[in-house]
């Protein structure tokens, strides 16, 4: 890693424990590289700005200057162009990453009432409500009857997700459903129960269980154990 074990001028002599702490800290910070990033707003802004005529004209003026440069430099510039602009412009159709931070926020907003949700008695009613909000709303699975329920449509990185707040547990649980083609599973630990793979994540006292079933991506989140969340997930049927 980046830790320095040998003593250098100006660098303190580190104890073995200090080296372990530093290496562990560097490792944990390095894991932020795989953190999901919401690029939707940035994509829109850069797309709009690059499309402006002024920028295009500048590039054309620069093009003639490029002719005087070695081919390798031109190739490097083209790579930069593709990396900086191309990736930003053409990635909006790809699946979003199931951002843990956004799902946590979504759950907290629903539980606190900051996001309006419609109370419903049945899943059929919930699906009707969601369909009225969005014609291509992902359909919700059937859940056990002993839950009070409220539903709403939200977006995660421009991808539509159907949300259902369940209040039958000791703590509220939010079920989020998206089309599997719209949502990438984040790189988190998984367990297998009854032949199904459940992806687990914990944020503070919140536990999260994600699953891909047929063409749907499901996520359950709440302040209850992941085992209980998995049990709820096993009771869901499309």
């Amino acid at each position, binding site marked *: 890693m*980046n830790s*320095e074990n040998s003593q*250098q*001028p*100006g*660098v*303190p002599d*580190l104890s073995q*424990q*200090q080296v*372990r*702490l*530093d290496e*562990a*800290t*560097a*490792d*944990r*910070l*390095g*894991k*932020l*590289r795989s*953190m999901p*990033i*919401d*690029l939707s*707003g*940035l994509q829109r*802004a*850069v797309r709009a*700005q*690059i499309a402006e005529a002024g*920028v295009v004209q*500048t*590039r054309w003026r*620069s093009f003639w*200057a*490029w002719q005087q*440069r*070695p081919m*390798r*430099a031109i190739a*490097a*510039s083209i*790579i*930069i*162009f593709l*990396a*900086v*602009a191309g990736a*930003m412009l053409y990635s909006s159709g790809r699946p979003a990453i199931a951002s*843990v*931070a956004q799902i*946590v926020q979504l759950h907290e907003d629903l539980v606190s009432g900051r996001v309006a949700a419609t109370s419903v008695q049945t899943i059929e009613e919930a699906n009707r409500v969601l369909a009225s909000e969005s014609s291509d709303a992902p359909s919700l699975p059937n859940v056990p009857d002993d839950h009070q329920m409220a539903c709403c449509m939200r977006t995660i990185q421009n991808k539509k997700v159907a949300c259902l707040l369940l209040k039958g547990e000791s703590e509220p649980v939010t079920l989020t459903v998206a089309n599997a083609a719209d949502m990438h599973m984040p790189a988190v630990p998984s367990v297998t129960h009854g032949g199904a793979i459940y992806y687990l994540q914990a*944020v*503070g006292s919140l536990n999260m269980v994600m699953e891909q079933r047929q063409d749907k991506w499901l996520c359950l989140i709440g302040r209850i154990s992941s085992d209980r969340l998995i049990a709820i997930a096993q009771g869901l049927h499309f």
Partner: protein
Amino acid sequence: MVARTALILTHNQAEADDLAQETLIKAFKSLDRFREGTDMRSWLATILRNTRIDRIRAAGARFTVPLEADVQDISEPAVDNSAAWSNPQAMLDGFSDEQMIRAMQSLPEEMRWALLLVDVEGLDQADAARIMGVPVGTVKSRIHRGRAMLRNALLA
């Protein structure tokens, strides 16, 4: 890399989007100044850093390095020797990305940059020193001090 660094620096999605957007547009407009053999990530990081400094200055704040960022005689925080850190890897993995980023906000800007470039983005210390315009020894010092401050902030 630009979007991630901007988000960790600012801890504000809208501000990060603005910063990343300005950086990418500047990079796009100055492609002809990109030198052959230059590492692209270092080049983009330099533009991002200059853009960040410009925005801070424009906002009326002085872009300064707090004295503590360059203190050489570092006394280690007592918390580092506590039982809580007996398994530092497990301890740190227990913190969410959000908690890590929030803790980064408590660090002086220049320490945050050092950790971002070296630990988060994986640049070598010499590249980080070039981007930050300081000697490599200063980067080493900021990284060491920054990691210790970060651990303290996580347990605060």
